[in-house]
């Protein structure tokens, strides 16, 4: 069975049908791309997948479990983590702590344990530090571990957001325009990182991106959204050669 099965998903804002009859199937371990013109509804799909918006209709099934309309927290616990189109870091916390917040639900001790500094506190904190540093290393951020997140350059902030999402140990990782604002070299590096994450963590990844180099470089499958509806879907090369897609999205 597919890792993620989305059926007939739809949502309206006032009179605007932002997403309509959206379908998608992602297999475990896939690197999947969601592309489409500006305002097509890609971010809105992410928002429905993660419970930020409640879909008006349709269903979302993750790993056999129906998560339609659930709250963001529960969806995260069920196994979806994401990054945001406009970066949302915990700006006044250190880079390390940003990741440790991500580890929140998997390395626990009670508040009282924390206040009283019982032995468990030290044990779990040490685990968390180790785990967080491992994650930071993947993204080449270990040297900046004690910087304030807001002091990182843009590209590194995007990477940190991915690291934080990964820390929640998701089954499915959603990335919203991870390469936006990066120059070609940084984008190349990012592509390697995403591939590494997929292989190393055995992750399923769904990403939104306008950078065609990245999309064609790493995505195995694509779905194209246009005006809220699926325009095309399938293997990357097929989709990218689809005349309709070229007309609506790629140009020339």
């Amino acid at each position: 069975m597919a890792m993620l099965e989305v059926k007939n998903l739809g949502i309206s804002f006032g009179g605007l049908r932002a997403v309509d009859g959206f379908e998608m199937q992602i297999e475990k371990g896939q690197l999947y791309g969601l592309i489409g013109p500006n305002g097509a509804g890609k971010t809105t799909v992410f928002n429905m997948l993660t419970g930020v918006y409640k879909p008006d209709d349709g269903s979302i099934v993750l790993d056999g479990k129906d998560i339609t309309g659930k709250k963001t927290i529960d969806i995260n616990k069920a196994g979806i983590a994401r990054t945001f189109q406009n970066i949302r870091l915990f700006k006044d916390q250190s880079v390390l702590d940003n990741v440790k917040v991500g580890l929140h639900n998997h390395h626990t001790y009670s508040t009282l344990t924390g206040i009283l500094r019982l032995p468990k506190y030290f044990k779990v904190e040490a685990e968390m530090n180790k785990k967080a540093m491992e994650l930071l290393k993947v993204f080449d951020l270990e040297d900046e571990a004690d910087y304030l997140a807001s002091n990182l350059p843009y590209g590194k902030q995007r990477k940190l957001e991915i690291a934080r999402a990964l820390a929640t140990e998701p089954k499915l990782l959603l990335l919203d325009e991870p390469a936006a604002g990066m120059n070609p070299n940084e984008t190349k590096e990012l592509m390697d990182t995403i591939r590494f994450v997929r292989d190393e963590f055995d992750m399923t990844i769904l990403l939104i991106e306008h950078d065609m180099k990245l999309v064609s470089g790493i995505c195995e499958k694509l779905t194209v959204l246009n005006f809220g509806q699926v325009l095309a879907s399938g293997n990357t090369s097929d989709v990218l050669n689809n005349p309709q897609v070229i007309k609506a999205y790629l140009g020339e």
Partner: protein
Amino acid sequence: MAMLEIKDLEVYYGVIQAIKGISFDVNEGEVIALIGANGAGKTTTLQTITGMLSAKKGSILFEGTDITKVPGHKIVSMGMAHVPEGRRVFAELSVYENLKLGAYTRKDKQEIAESLERVYKSFPRLKERKNQLAGTLSGGEQQMLAMGRALMSKPRIILMDEPSMGLSPIFVEEIFNIIKEISASGTTVLLVEQNAKKALSIADRAYVLETGKIVLSGDAKELMNNESIKKAYLGE
């Protein structure tokens, strides 16, 4: 005389020096590209020119007038527009109200209406959504709005900070066409882009910024063929 002349500019954030003495100029009618890696100081430079930040040292001359100490809003009414990084649309106002604010410095209602039509023509999506709150637009739509809003002031020079960010490939083409059009209609353009290849392809000249200093400058087409540029910024 150059339209915009930057001389020995130095800018600080608190004690951190972001711009370490740069000089460059922009002639009337040119398209100038400013490229550089993340954190090189491109945004800082643009913000200093339009008075959002103040320079510690150096001077900025706009059409011969020293505007280094002139308050930001006056610089705008002198004919300079700025498409800021991060779009900065007025989220709680409608698309239409945002565009109207773009024409804040202008008086002639007739001309403003004409400009509005022109913007709507370049960005039909904005016309469709003219009553939508800007904050609810998609990322790309907001980028269009930021651009349209800047054009509403009918500037003689326009500063753009990564206008193609977050736009779909087809629209990236479109936006560069629009920039060309703007330039063709006589407006001077100072363009900051991550998409260096595209930027250089439409620019007349370019400057390369690295950690607050200009390290290279020259004809855009020549720079495009410069090996180190190719390697560092064009991803080849």
